[in-house]
């Protein structure tokens, strides 16, 4: 079981090292396949670890509980060695294999493996293919480090490394200025979150001298300290998961290659914030206010991102805003205390959002890199496979039964209502409104891109790829597999009737009792969200399909949405402009007069002083002796007088 987790962690790292050291001795194809194989080996390791935990879980459920014995919660912490020690503070190189981390391992390596396989076709012919595959394997390693890390420091290391690999992959096409800018933006915003997380860890070290997950449940913190720790962790989660107010980097991150968007900016890395809340739920429960703030942030983000997605014209940006919106749902679920629902939505979202990105990638590939949806009408006619797979992903995203999103999203929305407080109902309404927006923006995309006769642009630019016309098998197989997963993946759990997923997580992140909805509430919520989703689809059909019902023009609202609620502009004004004004001023007032002029001045003064002092150096031995003797005599005199 622990061997499986080490295999899972180290196999992608080995692939990175082999590809980087191999350089041009490896063919591009070989590098691609090494990378893919390593991630599938990691998946094997994850499955191994999963069955290990599963066996313990069965024992826990059937022997310990039935016979009233006390057993350890399933899972195992393995320590390779003490990584750093200072006084009584020790941190080991530890991996934790427990129900929560195995779920994440399976998602990261499973979906990751499919996406890396897809990249073989997508990146074919890129001059720097090897570098890409080295980076992407490194990303999988970092992400696995994040989810498997057995203490908060290991988690933070993984957290930083995924930020690094995200930076490297967003800026992969480094000759494009926009890609480099986007990479920097993502890195800086994530660094902010890393810093707040590090501060939270410092507080924990100061109080407990330990960073193991066990201390989070301890009772040694005052309420305000617990609030600060939770706030620091929340800062990290918000930055990584692109939630308001640190959301602006995610849409720009679409400058990276599409498989990167699918893997990092949809399926795995950006959902790490939800994992963090579930993992550190003990501290968030001590700081319930902060946890509800997390839920509030999620509710706000899901609405704001859904609204912005309505006016985007770049196919990848629409999906990116949809990702933000869906992570908002996950935050909502984790924030109210329904961790397993949040994690379940994380899993189904990984399936259908990766699927949507990869079908978008197929479309972009077939249209020689065009991403503007206004030019794409009628693509379904020439790309039927892409069309049907996209439809499966879109229905899952909107949450239409029996597609997977239905099962995961509804239980989150129901859990918010289960709180029973006024904010619980506000969250509930946000969730329903979000479902309407999801239906609207998703099917706006669908009706603009797929049905109908091919537009002039599509007819002119579309060209066939691979044997089946839509792409090589390396791209089509992962899309097909994910389409199946996006359809059936949700059947794993339907909270009113069966909930193996929640049971699986009950030892790692048990749902709060306050967030357990009654069955009636579940059914009512399901009906409401599905109706809202269908209403959204109907609205999209009316506005964007053949009929084109005219909608009232609201230029002010449209401007607001197209400028993404002016977050970017506000950050420019608030942070960028003062910072750059300050540095210009510092350059003028400090750099030029003090530093640039100070150096030569200092040198000249030293030279002048040397010119005076050097006269003492006569070169005559007898003068030196005289001064020595005179000095000694003066000292003796001084002593005598002083006495």
């Amino acid at each position: 079981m622990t061997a499986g987790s080490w295999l899972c962690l180290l196999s992608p790292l080995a692939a990175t090292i082999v590809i980087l050291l191999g350089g041009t001795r490896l063919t591009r194809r070989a590098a691609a396949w090494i990378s893919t194989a390593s991630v599938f080996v990691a998946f094997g390791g994850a499955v191994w670890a999963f069955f290990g935990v599963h066996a313990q879980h069965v024992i826990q459920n059937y022997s310990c509980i039935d016979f009233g014995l006390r057993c350890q919660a399933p899972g195992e912490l393995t320590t390779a060695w003490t990584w750093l020690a200072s006084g009584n503070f020790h941190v080991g190189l530890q991996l934790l294999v427990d129900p929560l981390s195995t779920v994440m391992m399976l998602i990261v390596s499973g979906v990751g493996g499919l996406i890396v396989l897809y990249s073989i076709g997508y990146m074919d012919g890129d001059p720097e293919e090897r570098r890409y595959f080295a980076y992407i394997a490194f990303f999988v390693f970092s992400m696995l480090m994040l989810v498997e890390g057995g203490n908060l420091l290991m988690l933070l290391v993984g957290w930083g490394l995924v930020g690094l690999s995200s930076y490297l992959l967003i800026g992969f096409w480094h000759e494009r200025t926009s890609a480099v800018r986007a990479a920097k933006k993502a890195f800086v915003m994530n660094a902010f979150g890393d810093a707040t997380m590090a501060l939270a860890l410092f507080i924990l070290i100061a109080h407990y001298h330990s960073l193991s997950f066990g201390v989070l449940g301890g009772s040694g913190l005052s309420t305000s300290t617990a609030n600060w720790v939770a706030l620091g962790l929340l800062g990290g989660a918000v930055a990584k998961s692109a939630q308001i107010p640190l959301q602006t980097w995610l849409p720009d991150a679409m400058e990276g290659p599409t498989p990167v968007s699918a893997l990092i900016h949809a399926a795995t890395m950006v959902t790490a914030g939800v994992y963090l809340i579930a993992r550190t739920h003990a501290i968030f429960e001590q700081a319930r206010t902060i946890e509800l703030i997390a839920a509030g942030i999620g509710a706000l983000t899901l609405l704001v991102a859904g609204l912005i997605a309505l006016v985007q014209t770049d196919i990848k940006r629409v999906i990116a805003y949809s990702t933000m919106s869906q992570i908002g749902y996950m935050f909502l679920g984790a924030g109210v205390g329904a961790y397993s629902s949040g994690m379940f939505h994380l899993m189904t979202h990984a399936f259908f959002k990766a699927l949507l990105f990869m079908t978008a990638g197929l479309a972009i590939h077939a249209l020689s890199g065009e991403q503007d949806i206004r030019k794409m009408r009628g693509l379904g006619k020439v790309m039927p496979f892409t069309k049907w797979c996209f439809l499966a992903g879109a229905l899952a995203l909107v949450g239409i039964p029996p597609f997977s999103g239905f099962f995961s999203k509804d239980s989150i929305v129901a859990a918010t209502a289960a709180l029973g407080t006024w904010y619980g109902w506000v969250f509930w309404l946000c969730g329903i409104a979000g479902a309407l927006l999801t239906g609207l923006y998703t099917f706006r995309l669908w009706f603009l891109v797929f049905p109908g006769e091919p537009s002039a642009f599509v007819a002119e630019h579309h060209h066939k790829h691979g044997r089946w016309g839509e792409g090589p098998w390396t791209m089509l197989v992962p899309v097909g597999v994910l389409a199946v997963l996006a359809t059936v993946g949700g059947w794993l759990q339907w909270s009113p009737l069966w909930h193996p997923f929640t049971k699986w997580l009950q030892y790692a992140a048990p749902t709060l009792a306050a967030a357990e909805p009654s069955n009636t509430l579940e059914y009512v919520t399901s009906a409401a969200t599905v109706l809202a989703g269908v209403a959204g689809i109907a609205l999209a059909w009316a506005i964007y399909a053949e009929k084109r019902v005219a909608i009232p023009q609201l230029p002010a609202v449209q401007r607001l949405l197209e400028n993404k609620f002016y977050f970017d502009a506000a950050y420019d004004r608030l942070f960028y402009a003062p910072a750059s004004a300050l540095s210009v001023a510092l350059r003028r007032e400090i750099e030029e007069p003090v530093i640039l002029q100070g150096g030569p001045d200092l040198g000249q003064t030293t030279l002048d002083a040397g010119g005076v002092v050097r006269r003492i150096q006569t070169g005559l031995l007898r003068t030196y002796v005289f001064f020595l003797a005179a000095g000694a005599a003066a000292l003796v005199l001084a002593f005598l007088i002083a006495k």
Partner: protein
Amino acid sequence: MSGPGTTWYLVLAAFLFGIGALGVLIRRNPLIVLLSLELMLNGGNLALIAFSRHFADGAGQIFGLAVMAVAASEVCVGLGLVVAINRKKLPLDVDRLSELRG
């Protein structure tokens, strides 16, 4: 304790030291300068031994031995320098050997 008192030894030591210091200051031949240095060191040594006897404490004698060792090594280096100067056919005059003037 027999023989002259400690004061006499100290007066002699001061004379030796003074003669040596004058020699170092006035003479220009490096050999004589080294010789005068030896006089100064021995003056110092004499004072050390005198105090050692005065206080009936062996430490002064140990210091004296140490000074002798230092003096011996100093003379080795000094005479070596004199030989080297001579071999280079440079003047044996400390006033004219003033290349390190600032």
